[in-house]
Every structure is written in C-alpha cells, then in structure tokens.
C-alpha cells in the first residue's frame, strides 16, 4: 500500500495515532503528528512511497507536533520529537514539513552507522553514480534537482549511503530540499515539478521541497556503482568547466563531509580510500543548468570511451 492509496482522513488519523509507518528504504520511520498541514505535505511529497503495517519494526519514531502547554495558544510552534524527546528548537507551525525532513535526516545521520553517510547529492545513470559532496554555497541541490530531470536518477539530494561491504551507494530518493533562488531556477527549468508551498523565514531562508520523480522512487532500492565524485562550485555567470581534482584533497573533503566518518575509525579511512579509488575526482564550475546537463553527458560518455 502506498501513501497515495490512503484517503486524507485515514492519513490524518494515522498521524494522530502515531500509526503511520513510511518505508524509506533502507529505513522505516514511524511518524506522529497533530498538524493537519503536515498530512497534506506528506500526501503530496511521499505519494509513491509504501506504508508498512503498524505492527512492523520501525528504525525511528518521530513526531512533529505543536508544542505543549500555554504556548500552543499564544504563538503556535511545532517541535520535532525523537522517540518522545524534543530535539532542535521550536519552529513556526508552517515549517512543520521542513522540520520533519531535517529531523529524518538527523535520525539517519546519527544512527545509520552500517553505512558511511556522506553529506552529498547522489545521482545515477547506466548504473553509475555521481557523488556531489556539499560544502556551503556549492549549489549542489540546484544541480541535483536539475540533472534528475535530464535523465539522471535521484538517489538522494542530502545523504549518500555508502555500503562498505558491497562498495555500492544507496539513497532514499526523498523530497529534494531547495532554497531561495534555486527555487526559482528549478521552477523555470522544470515547470512541471511538484513543490510544497515556499516556506519563508526559516534559518536557511525561503525553503521549498520538491517531490522526487516517480521513477526514482520506484527504483530507490537499487544501489549504484560510485564512478565520479564531482565537487560543484556554482559561480555567477561562469562558463561550465569540469576539472580534475586532487584525490587526496577529495579524500579530506569527503571525510569532512561525512556525518559518521569519525565513528568508523580505521575502517572509515580504508572505506573512503576505497571510494576514492573507485571514482574519478572532479571540480565542476557552472552557472547554468543547461551547461551542467551537457557537462555530465560528457562525463558519462568519457567514462564509456
């Protein structure tokens, strides 16, 4: 059964009871909420995701609900709860869905140590994955959101799950997080993209979430072979340029951009080493998504040659 098979009433009811489970392969989340707008956002953004039975094991119990006590009436704020304990600061209720997304990212990053969890976008074509690690200001999300509408499959826009045993990378194909100008850029590039209402005044500016392409959601259980590591560098008005990058520097960047590199210790060092060995390392300067499309096609072709 998928989210789209549930009526609004059923969805709201399950959220209220805390009996909505969401299959976010390789994880399952149990979600509770008393905020009706959250139900409609989940219906829109997670339409193609499966809903396991409520008697199944869930990796994370999360809740996004209104604050308790007097504040509830004066200035309604929502709070994220992990297994009943509040985390993060309260935020205005209209940011509830964004808060759920950030909260779920935290759950995975803080607990999923069977993987090396890389803060990166991951996209795939012909079984090959391009990993786009995400230091600030890189324009990673815009690039990712654009390319997944040019024939690339979305694995993730935030969390690359590198499986050490197999050397393959997984993603959950969850909604893509966009902010500020990238919202406008993507709306122009992909007029048909389904997005939440823009949420202004978050700590990141105006934020919007884009529904993942249905094909990506359906294929999300399939991992991909890491083939390229591309550091995006959005630079206003720049011509597109794909350059080779130092493997050692890429190593340090990946280690820095992995949430749990440190947890893996010696094993983590060997894992990132293996990942670098599997891939060619690049830095990509760009300003237009059309250029990015061509550049990544070249990358793909170059690898086949």
């Amino acid at each position, binding site marked *: 059964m998928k989210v789209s098979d549930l009526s609004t009433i059923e969805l709201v009811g399950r959220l209220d009871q805390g009996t909505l489970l969401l299959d976010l392969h390789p994880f399952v989340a149990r979600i509770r909420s008393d905020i009706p707008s959250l139900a409609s956002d989940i219906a829109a953004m997670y339409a193609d995701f499966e809903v396991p039975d409520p008697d199944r094991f869930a990796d994370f119990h999360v809740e996004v609900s209104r604050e308790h006590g007097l504040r509830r009436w004066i200035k309604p704020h929502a709070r994220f709860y992990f297994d009943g304990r509040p985390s993060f600061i309260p935020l205005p209720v209209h940011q509830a869905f964004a808060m759920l997304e950030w909260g779920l990212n935290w759950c995975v990053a803080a607990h999923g140590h069977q993987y090396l969890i890389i803060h990166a976008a991951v996209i795939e074509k012909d079984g090959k994955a391009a990993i786009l690690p995400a230091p600030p200001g890189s324009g990673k999300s815009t690039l990712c959101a654009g390319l997944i509408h040019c024939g690339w499959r979305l694995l993730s826009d935030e969390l690359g799950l590198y499986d050490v045993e197999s050397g393959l990378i997984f993603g959950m194909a969850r909604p893509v997080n966009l902010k500020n100008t990238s919202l406008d850029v993507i709306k122009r590039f992909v007029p048909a993209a389904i997005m939440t209402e823009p949420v202004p005044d978050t700590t990141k500016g105006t934020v919007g979430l884009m529904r993942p392409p249905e094909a990506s959601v359906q294929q999300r259980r399939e991992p991909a072979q890491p083939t390229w590591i591309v550091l995006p560098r959005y630079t206003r008005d720049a011509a597109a340029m794909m350059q080779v990058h130092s493997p050692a520097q890429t190593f340090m960047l990946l280690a820095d951009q992995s949430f749990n*590199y440190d947890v893996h210790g010696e094993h983590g*060092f060997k894992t990132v080493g293996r990942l670098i060995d599997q891939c060619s390392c690049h830095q990509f300067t760009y300003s237009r998504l059309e250029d990015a499309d061509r550049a990544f096609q070249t990358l793909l072709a170059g690898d086949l040659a």
Partner: protein
Amino acid sequence: MEPGQDRVLPQQQLDRQNLLIVSLRIWSRTPLDQFLFKEWAEDDDVVAFSKRSGDTHLLSPLPLALLALLGKSPETSRSLLDKLTAELTQIEPDEAFELIETTLIQLQDIGLVTHSSP
C-alpha cells in the same frame, strides 16, 4: 587555594622559553606501523590515519620530505634545513627555518615525530 581566584600563567614567558627549546631538539620519526597511509600516483599530497588517536591528516610535500629524512636518521631543524636547501629555493632561509620548525611541531602533535633534548 583562594576562593574565586583565577589561576593565570605568564604566557609570553612560556612562549619565549618554548622557541628556544624547540631549536635545540633532536627530532626522530615514530614507528610508522601506528599509522595508515594512502597516496595516489597523480597527487603530491598523502593522507594519513593515526590508529592511536583515530585522527586523519593531510600531509603535503614539506612534512613528507621531513618524514623521509627523519626516516634515515634523527636530525635537528638546522640540519633538516641544510638538507632541504635545494628544494626550498623559493623561500628566505629564515622563513624556511621557521616553517620547518612549525611543521615539526605539527607532526609532533599528530604523533609522527618525537624529540629528545641534547
């Protein structure tokens, strides 16, 4: 111990003492089996993992050269400067000396080198 009294040390005094002491040190390399290294043919830099501390470090050509020299025999920072004169032509000798000493202290903090006093 007086109630509420902050304990303050003469930092400048310590710094001056430190500089004097550093230049007299005899440096040697620690056993490399406590580290894991990874290098790539096309890269001058090397990454290193300390098994004892769990920390990861990026080593650029200068620290690598120092480690290579110390792998042959213990040296003072003066003798290391002499051996690297050909490679360090771009920098003034005083600056080069300071750079070598700073790098040695960083390598010591990482655990790759130690020193003894004469």
